[in-house]
């Protein structure tokens, strides 16, 4: 075999191999039946192969052929010009591509009545149908797993991969409340969760700094039964009338404050939250299943 052809084959194989390994190792994205991924890789493959072999064809002509033809009369700065015919393959493909383009634009495309939004709607529907079919009744473990995957994409940029709030930049979700947040809400009240708790929480139910400190410690450390001072201050502030004896919350009155549950997370996602730590945006374009999954996942974090 000719050296050049061999070189072309080697180049092709080397590049394909390299591409295959690298793309494959980036997370095994065969793209299960997804033709966009396949077409892209195919495009890259075709590109390397066609270029290598077409160029090899001409290199071989440089090696073995000789220049012939009738020269034109003119000549520019010593450069002559042959009156050779068009390379046959080129001419045919050029003509073919023009015919194809006209056909496609005038007939092929209008007949398909393609619309990118239509295609999008179909794509989304296909996903929904598949989800319904495969995950209609998820067990709690799977739900949590799904929540984790949504969390990494949507929530980790603020709460961190460990959900620890990245040094206080957002809420630490492995623990329901810190003292700072409790004090903040006692002093300022709160009305973030307008949908679920339209009344909000009034400010200044406690004013004595010592009492506030005590409640903050009590709530933040998770309603420890042996913290009598804390408990007393909690009752003094009438907190229990809304949040319940142990901070378990009451529907439509006040949220759970002794830990996370799905209702609490749902509320935060629906209305967002602005508190002592900062502001959390509302997430209204999550699906119901995703919200449930996040609820399960976040609740599990502090367990």
């Amino acid at each position, binding site marked *: 075999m000719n050296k050049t052809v061999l070189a072309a084959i080697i180049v092709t194989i080397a*590049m394909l191999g390299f*591409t295959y390994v*690298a*793309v494959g190792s*980036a*997370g095994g*994205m065969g*793209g299960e039946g997804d*033709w*966009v*991924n396949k*077409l*892209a890789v195919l*495009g890259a493959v075709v*590109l390397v192969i066609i*270029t290598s072999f*077409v*160029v090899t064809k*001409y290199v071989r002509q*440089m*090696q073995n*052929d000789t*220049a012939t*033809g009738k020269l*034109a009369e*003119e000549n*520019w*700065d*010593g*450069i*002559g*010009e*042959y*009156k*050779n*015919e*068009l*390379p046959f393959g*080129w001419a045919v*493909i*050029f003509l073919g*591509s*023009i015919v*194809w*383009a006209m056909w*496609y*634009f005038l007939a092929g*495309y209008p007949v398909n009545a*393609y619309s*990118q939004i239509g295609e999008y709607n179909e794509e989304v529907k296909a*996903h929904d149908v*598949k*989800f319904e079919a*495969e995950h209609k009744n998820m067990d709690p473990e799977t739900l949590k797993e799904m929540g984790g995957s*949504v969390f*990494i*994409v949507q929530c*980790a940029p603020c709460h961190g991969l460990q959900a620890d709030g990245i040094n206080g930049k957002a809420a630490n979700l492995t623990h329901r409340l810190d003292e700072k947040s409790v004090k903040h809400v006692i002093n300022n009240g709160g009305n973030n969760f307008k949908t679920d708790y339209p009344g909000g929480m009034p400010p200044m139910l406690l004013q004595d700094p010592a009492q506030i400190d005590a409640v903050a410690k009590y709530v933040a450390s998770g309603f420890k039964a042996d913290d009598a001072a804390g408990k007393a201050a909690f009752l003094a502030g009438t907190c229990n009338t809304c949040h319940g004896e142990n901070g378990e919350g009451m529907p439509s009155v006040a949220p759970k404050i002794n830990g996370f549950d799905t209702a609490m997370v749902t509320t935060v996602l629906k209305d967002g939250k602005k508190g002592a730590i900062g502001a959390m945006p509302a997430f209204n374009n999550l699906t119901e*299943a*995703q919200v449930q999954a996040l609820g399960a996942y976040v609740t599990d974090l502090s367990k």
Partner: protein
Amino acid sequence: MENRPLEYDYTVAKMFMLTTVLLGIVGMLVGVILAWELAFPAVNTIAGQGVAEYTNFSRLRPLHTDAVIFGFTVSGVFATWYYVGQRVLKVSMAESKFLMALGKLHFALYLLVVVAVVGSLLLGITTSKEYAEFEWPIDIAIVVVWVIWGLQIFGLIGIRREKSLYISVWYYIATFLGIAMLYLFNNMEIPTYFASGGIGAWYHSVSMYSGTNDALVQWWYGHNAVAFGFTVPIVAMIYYFLPKESGQAVYSYKLSLLAFWGLMFVYLWAGGHHLLFSTVPDWMQTMGSVFSVVLILPSWGSAINMLLTMKGEWQQVAASPLIKFMILASTFYMFSTLEGPIQAIKSVNALAHFTDWIVGHVHDGVLGWVAFMIMASLFHMAPRVFKREIYSKSLMNTQFWIQTLGVVLYFTSMWIAGITQGMMWRAHDEFGNLAYSFIDTVTVLHPYYTIRAVGGTLYLVGMFLFAYNMYKTMTSGRRVEESELQNASPMGA
């Protein structure tokens, strides 16, 4: 008269050769810095926190693109015009005092624009439109520079002795007209200082077009800036320098003709491929896709014509690094003009758009084709304008291999990066949720960004070798006689 060799005057050509080399180095140095910044963000502050405003990736990126396009490439186009134009029209610039004076003015104004561009981009004065970042005062200066070039072209043509125009001249004329039209329309903007009665920054302007329309005009421009900046004038170069250096006649006039008019006709329609799946109407996007595929043929026509011109001349390719540069350039030209249409297919673009695969496509074109061809042209010109042989052939060979390796590292790494990134963005997990957070798709690219940076650095090293070789040619190459300059350029060991 007809028989006495003409004394061509290369004064202006030399000036633009200088800026080609200098701005090439500056532009690519900035490119290399960008590449390292993406691989290692600490490089953003390498010159100190205090000047990070001027050295960080985002402030420097437009400087890179504009320095290599409007600095390096356009200088190369001007330099070769001032050389090729005289020779194929058989007329010397020395024959017209007017053209000589205008040529020098052309260069002086060009320098002024370069300074203004560098200064304003570093200060962050930009309109944000890619490859059209300049504010209106610079636009006006650019138009003046361009008009002067037009006067040069048509002035020289006006006093030509060669009745019929050589292929290269067709392409130079098209470059002039194409860029003129595109630049004017894409830069329609209203200076706010005047419109508001003297408030705010005097140089600030607002685009005449908004939103989707602005995008449409921008990419009609952007795509064709590639056409008339990175393709048409470079084809002009190869049509002159390859046959001239090799002493071979152009393979086929018919092919030259069809490829030229085909390119002119098809190119403009393809701009829509930058706007696939955007808010531009479907039919316009489809038009962009379809014409992109057709565009393969007129593009390949010129490349094939050049490769066939070298039919039976393999010994020249093997022996001359100068011809190697040009043959590899046509190969990369074919490569990127097949790659582009593949990326223009809607389903491929769904993955490729916004990724590094596009950056890979850009650089196999510009490094492998544009820059190789410009450097080859300058190598061929040097012995003729300095009357000295090229200082070192082995240095040229070294440069060729270093830069080839650089290009290969650049585009292979960006391919993999781009396709990986594209797939990860699209990937859904078993629940139909996104499988990767955005940052996952960033960190995975680190090795490829590093390889690209290495490749780019190699290419830059090649640029320094090039500059050194040119400098030595100019100052200490062996003096040569006119008779040695017919075809193959004389080269020292």
